[in-house]
């Protein structure tokens, strides 16, 4: 990776990255990664699923079976499953 040489270059990079990230979100290839704490420790472990064109949904108390259920029902068939954690904050 070449070094970023100016603020303008950084901004251009942001725009390019935003569109590739959008692409990733819009594509049908699922991708998963570990984030930082979402704050919902009372319902741990939690996962967030972001499907193309929809608001992200957080599911709480996930175990192997629940993860299966979320994949087959929500991700593949758009059926919401039990244990949704409502978002209760605003961010900037």
């Amino acid at each position, binding site marked *: 990776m070449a070094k*970023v040489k100016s*603020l303008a270059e950084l901004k251009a990079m942001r725009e390019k990255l935003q569109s590739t990230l959008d692409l990733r979100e819009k594509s049908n290839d699922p991708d998963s990664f570990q984030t930082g704490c979402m704050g919902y420790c009372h319902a741990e472990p939690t996962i967030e699923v972001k499907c193309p064109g929809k608001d992200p949904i957080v599911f709480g108390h996930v175990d192997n079976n629940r993860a299966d259920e979320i994949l087959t029902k929500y991700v593949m068939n758009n059926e919401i499953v039990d244990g949704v*954690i409502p978002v209760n904050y605003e961010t900037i």
Partner: protein
Amino acid sequence: MHVLVCGGTGCQASASAQIIKNFEDILAAKGLQDEVQVVRTGCFGFCEKGPIVKIMPDNTFYTQVKPEDVEKIVNEHIIKGRKVTDLLYMDPENKEHVADSKHMGFYRKQLRIALRNCGFINPENIDECISRGGYEALGKVLSEMTPQQVVDEITKSGLRGRGGAGFPTGVKWGLCAKNKCDEMYVICNADEGDPGAFMDRSIMEGDPHSIVEAMAICGYAIGATHGLVYIRAEYPLAIHRLQVAIAQAREYGLLGKDILGSGFDFDIELRYGAGAFVCGEETALIHSMEGKRGEPTLKPPFPAVSGYMAKPSNVNNVETFANVPIIITKGADWFASIGSEKSKGTKVFALAGQINNVGLIEVPMGTTLRDIIYEIGGGIKGGRKFKAVQTGGPSGGCLTEKHLDTPIDYESLAAAGSMMGSGGMVVMDDTSCMVAIAKFYLEFTCEESCGKCSPCRIGNKRMLEILTKITEGRGTMDDLQELRNLAAVIKDTALCGLGQTSPNPVLSTLDNFWDEYVEHVVDKKCRAGVCKKLMRYEIDKEKCIGCGACKKNCPAEAISKTDYIAPGHKLPSMMIDPSKCIKCGACISTCKFSAISVK
């Protein structure tokens, strides 16, 4: 269409299970079960107005729904598309019904600034950070602002240190910048020693680049080229993510020489702490980084004059830094518009204890304790009674019912006898004994005192001995006075902040829960049933049928037969010998006749 029914503990207690069942039954009866899906959710944080039903996709938010309301919701809303007005949330201020939950004030109770990226980005991927505007604040200060302008902007924003004391960050930077020197340091205090606190850890794990970026901005503002993060070795994931972030930033030329072509050089190193609470105190932290003993020294000189390696150094907390980039990009005025008069922005709290929604929250300064506990925290577990909330960890105090409407900021918490601290918030219900709580914190400070000065080393130990006496039923009223005397002396004479604040948990409980202390001392009673030595297990001789189940289970052979047979019973009642009883509680759980109780 989805019907979301709250299945959180609060709403379950108020019949949400029945509501779900009614929805399922009625929808099935109308043949709608395939079009409308009923889903149980976690707590909305709105338990006081529960049970909650939310209809998606139109976001309609029904409160205080009763099982018998379900039919109406199905007929009106789901079939005819008309909202059931009288079940909508009513805004307490303008008495209007709010249909869309996104417009409810309650959603504005939490505002995430320091946690803006936590949980949204992959913290180990700098591209995701850049796609959300990461490092643009650094780019902006390097290309458009002078160091003095950066200091002024941070000062104007009103940002104050989140490490506990609340010193204005811009002013601190300005003081340091005045001591121009060939070698200066930016230090990030990531020691986070308060028991139960994990705000800083979450920021470093969730958004490490914001710390890297902010430290570079601070370096530019004060004229430093070296950054040091003092982080406890007990935080391996945070360490790993910071290392990855630093390496990626170097690779992109956002750390190192000639950052973004500006000629400014800055780099960051990590230093590991062994996890001593006192090493979070800035002078002790600096000594520890220098390879010396982690003991505080007298201030002045302040680190801004003589810090790491006797060079001018600026120490800030992780959360303080996390606010910096966004202040630069969105402007000081924006930041200053959030919060209360003297405390700007937001504060992250680790909510713990007897509360439904334990977790990490971020609220604007000036939010009341009541809002945090009841609206965000979802109220007390099991619907029990609120008793106290501890803020500020071992340096803070316990606040009560009468402080619930205190707006949270540095000044009002201090005026109420506690302090902001780093953001631990432990909620207690009536099963907590306040004397035992005070003792818990004092045990912590005794353990963590570095021992350098006698008021803290010896004074705290004396206080702990007295508290132990009281919890064991050997306390006197003179002891209570002695606690106050000792506390006053320790506060006045201890060398560092640890000792100066260590009596706070005792003082605040003495002030707010005096009756409870007196009860321990005079009546030899612990109303919460926590102080074991004060507990007495007793068998009600009228209720006891003499089955002897408890006797078989008692490991201490403390239970024996009496010669009393209660009216209507055939066998003699049992009794407990208090001198043999070890208070294990085994008998209580075996008695099927509720004849045993704790006094």
